[in-house]
């Protein structure tokens, strides 16, 4: 039985990763999960310099989901390389995807250049879809021309393969997927969070200081499956599927819809061992269904 998947020449021991921003760089969840069992650790977004993020409250619960408006708080690429990448040296079986964020094309490039010679970095995930920062982030991800341009620019500088992370907050995500492919993306990942809002009826005010936040959790899963399916039928590059994946069934569903790998995000918050539980469930499914290679199920539901 073979759980290996390959994306842009990078081999992953299995298709289960965690979604950027829900897992730090693995240090905290390393207490509950053997990071060496994961297909990859996908780091929280890293910028050129430290970002303080948004004011609090940054978190709100909604039915079967949550809103967050962290605003990409991060220590900047220098601290990240010296601390987080060093920490990840201890987990050689897992691949490392570094999520890159910026307010401008120049800021993305600065991070990409700094990471170019870091051997622990297997792939870059370019965040053009964060709904919680005013400049950069989603501003690049809602216009196909901008998606193509930033992809082309990053691709020119990057020494590692690049994955463009797409926003669901668009009229037609296929258009963005095609734009990323046209710009030279090695893969795409989707979905980032859906922009939402929650109002406290007693206080008659917004729950989040940022007013809006990105919605994630089990409630968004069917939307994510639909979007992965649409993109899989629109582009020829691999897809990392995510959005509300909480059980092994959710992960298998993503792969049947066309994802080569699957990220687990918000589920980590309600089950710290969600990633490995999902992996175990997927392996049992393969045994039961007599699936020799996990790649055999990718996109078979047409």
């Amino acid at each position: 039985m073979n759980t290996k998947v390959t994306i842009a020449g990078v081999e992953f021991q299995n298709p289960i990763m965690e979604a950027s921003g829900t897992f730090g760089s693995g240090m905290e969840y390393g207490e509950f999960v053997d990071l060496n069992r994961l297909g990859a650790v996908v780091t929280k977004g890293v910028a050129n310099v430290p970002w303080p993020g948004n004011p609090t409250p940054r978190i709100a619960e909604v039915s079967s989901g949550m809103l967050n408006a962290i605003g990409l708080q991060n220590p900047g690429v220098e601290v990240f390389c010296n601390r987080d990448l060093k920490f990840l040296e201890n987990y050689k079986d897992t691949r490392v995807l570094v999520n890159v964020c910026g307010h401008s094309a120049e800021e993305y490039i600065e991070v990409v250049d700094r990471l170019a010679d870091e051997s622990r970095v297997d792939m870059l995930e370019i965040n053009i879809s964060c709904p919680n920062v005013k400049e950069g982030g989603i501003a690049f991800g809602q216009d196909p021309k901008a998606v193509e341009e930033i992809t082309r620019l990053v691709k020119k500088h990057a020494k590692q393969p690049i994955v463009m992370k797409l926003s669901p907050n668009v009229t037609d995500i296929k258009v963005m997927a095609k734009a990323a492919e046209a710009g030279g993306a090695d893969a795409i990942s989707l979905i980032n969070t859906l922009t939402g809002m929650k109002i406290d009826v007693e206080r008659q005010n917004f729950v989040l200081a940022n007013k809006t936040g990105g919605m994630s959790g089990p409630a968004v899963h069917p939307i994510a499956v639909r979007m992965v399916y649409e993109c899989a039928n629109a582009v020829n590059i691999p897809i990392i599927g995510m959005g509300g994946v909480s059980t092994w069934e959710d992960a298998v569903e993503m792969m049947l819809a066309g994802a080569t790998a699957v990220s687990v995000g918000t589920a980590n918050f309600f089950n710290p061992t969600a990633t490995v539980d999902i992996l175990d469930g997927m392996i049992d499914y393969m045994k039961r269904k007599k699936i020799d290679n996990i790649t055999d199920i990718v996109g078979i539901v047409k």
Partner: protein
Amino acid sequence: MKVKETAQIVASDKLAENIYSMLLATTASQYAVPGQFINIYCNDGSKILPRPISICEIDKELGTLRVVYRVVGKGTAEFSNLKPGDTVEILGPLGNGFPLEEGKAIVVGGGIGVPPMLELAKELTGDVTAVLGYRTDDLFLADNFIDAAAEVVFATDDGSVGVHGTVVDAMKENDLRADVIYACGPKPMLKGVAEYADSIGAKCYVSMEERMACGVGACLGCVCQSKEVDNHSHVNNKRVCKDGPVFLSTEVVL
């Protein structure tokens, strides 16, 4: 050491209007210190986030943790309906807890900030005065504090018991002195307590509160503003769940 496990409810009682006590059998009790909290997960899967609830009492011998919490929404309402023998998923203990210092101490709790001060009052070895603030004369846990502390001072919003006013008013009125003050309660109260501590030359630890998601320091949802650049993100944001919830009053912006 943090434990993720299914905990059995040993006792569940109503203490006052919307205030409930729950005794949990859990191995997390073996690692807990005063001022830490546990994440309790709802059995109703549509409420996905854990509820971070402070530890009120620790019994290592019996292997139990007691939490006392206010019902503020559907999640805590679910907990209040649990009966002995029922189970809940928990993760903990989380956070840093109060450092146990030598000398004369004042423990200050306001409202639902009262419960975490009980285990602290029990474990402090020096002379302890408890200053407890309530809305009304519904003085939950007061008897426990009378057993645990040398002196207990009350403040109520409606003036029905003790000093009519805040815990800070009560400290001033009683001219309380100490080497160290520990406080948990709403932010304006913590600010007032920190100022009082400063005025009498006492060290002051405050337990902060913020909306949380993961509870383990990964998501950066629950930060508070710190005066110095923090070690994690190198900005001025400390993680309440991981770097705290207990901070020196001089470390954070109140």
